């Protein structure tokens, strides 16, 4: 039961498919068996038989063929030796394979793709430009890139990048970035200072942790007024000052504030409308060289362009400097149009809602708003006030004169 193995071995050693035409083919095969010749895939077809034998056994057939005188014909030659022989005959094909692997080997020593991940505050273009300035572009030798040094350099040159990982995989350079998205909180330096109001309002509540409160709930104050003073005066039993100390004032002040809001919207505007006409253009790129192929082109007065880039990737991270850039062009027209009253009202309300949202994000608590919309033939106006509670305050160093 060695059929499977035998066929595998046959393929490596090479085998021939023969056709025998004889009245006594049985005798031929019996003689083969006696001489130790193995026959495979013997198909009887009327007075003919097709069978397979190894190349070694094929040469042992001649004395038997002389004896039985069959009509023996080679139908096919198969197996590795024949394939190899066939390949060797095609020198250009062989040269092509050698050149292909050589080119692949050479191209594998360069960077053909840069992947940037994790960046939000620094755009891809900013980082590409930065890499370009530091000599890292498509086609840079991999051996000339020191990943650790590049990591340190990026961290040093970008203040908002707190962690960076640079790795080379195949022909791809991976740059993974973590940015500090929180606001930089500076620790109080302890310099004696006052807490001052940043805008006009009415004090809702005041709690002084350090320093002397200068206002009380209900007081009307103006921007720049001192709310908590950094000067602490110690009094004796007779309420006479016996000591003065300058401290870093600290505390919480809540103020009722009034924010004016005005928005104007012109009735006339330029409307952008897509015509439905579009076309696609393709450009091939090899490294930094770009070859545009403009088989079909249309001329648009106004157009939107957006594109996508494709780079040839042989396997996982093995990118090659070959690819195509596809650009889509969409035509649009600009026409002078007028808003209807409802449209104007809707736009103004949407803008106002967006403005309120932004105020809320700043930590200002909105109590009430009192805005009105007035619409004329030319424009629409939205104006009024927003009433809110603000906890923001400024700080002012205690000056020598103040002391």
């Amino acid at each position, binding site marked *: 039961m060695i*059929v499977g193995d*035998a066929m595998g071995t046959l393929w490596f050693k090479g085998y021939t498919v023969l056709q025998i035409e004889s009245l006594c083919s*049985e005798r031929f*095969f019996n003689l083969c068996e006696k001489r130790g010749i193995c*026959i495979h895939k*013997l*198909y009887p077809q009327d007075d003919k038989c097709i*069978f397979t034998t190894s190349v070694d056994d094929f040469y042992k057939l001649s004395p038997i063929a002389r004896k039985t005188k069959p009509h023996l014909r080679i139908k096919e030659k198969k197996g590795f030796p024949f394939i190899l022989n066939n390949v060797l005959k095609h020198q250009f094909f062989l040269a092509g394979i050698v050149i292909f692997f050589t080119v692949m080997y050479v191209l594998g020593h360069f960077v053909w793709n840069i992947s940037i991940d994790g960046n939000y505050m620094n755009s891809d273009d900013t980082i590409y430009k930065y890499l370009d300035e530091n000599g890292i572009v498509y086609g840079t030798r991999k051996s000339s890139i020191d990943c650790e040094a590049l990591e340190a350099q990026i961290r040093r040159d970008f203040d908002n990048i707190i962690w960076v990982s640079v790795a080379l995989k195949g022909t791809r350079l991976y740059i993974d970035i973590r940015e500090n998205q929180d606001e930089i909180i500076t620790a109080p330096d302890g310099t004696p200072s006052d807490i001052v109001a940043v805008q006009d309002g009415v004090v809702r509540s005041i709690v002084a942790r350090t320093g002397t409160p200068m206002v009380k709930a209900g007081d009307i104050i103006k921007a720049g007024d001192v709310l908590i003073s950094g000067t602490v005066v110690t009094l004796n039993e007779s309420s006479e000052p016996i000591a003065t100390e300058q401290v870093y004032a600290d505390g919480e002040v809540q103020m009722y504030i009034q924010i004016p809001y005005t928005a104007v919207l012109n009735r006339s505007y330029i409307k952008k409308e897509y015509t439905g006409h579009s076309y696609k253009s393709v450009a091939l790129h090899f490294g930094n060289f770009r070859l545009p192929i403009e088989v079909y082109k249309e001329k648009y007065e106004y157009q939107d362009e957006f594109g996508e880039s494709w780079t040839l990737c042989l396997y996982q991270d093995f990118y090659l400097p070959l690819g195509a850039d596809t650009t889509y062009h969409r035509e649009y027209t600009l026409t002078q149009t007028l808003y209807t009253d409802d449209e104007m009202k809707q736009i103004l309300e949407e803008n106002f809602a967006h403005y309120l949202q932004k105020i809320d994000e700043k930590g200002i608590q909105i109590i009430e708003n009192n805005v009105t919309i007035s619409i004329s033939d030319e424009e629409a106006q939205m104006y009024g006030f927003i009433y809110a509670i603000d906890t923001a305050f400024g700080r002012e160093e205690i000056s020598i004169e103040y002391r």
Partner: protein
Amino acid sequence: MKKDLLDAMFIPRDAVYKEYNLSTVGNKQLFVEGFEAIKELSSTLIRLRVKDGFLCITGEKLYVEYFGEGEIMIRGCITAIQLK
């Protein structure tokens, strides 16, 4: 006497008496060991000479998968195996 001795030593008969041995896989494959020669070969009948006579394998689309060293593997749609 010889038979008793072989039985006692657990030696198979086909190894000593050069008898043939058949094994089949369904009706699609037949493997014969210890046959002497092929006497007739066609896609419907394969006749093998064995020690005591002839083994006739009839069927359809019969072909020899492997043949050599006293072994033959026949494949196809086997309908009958007869000893004549």
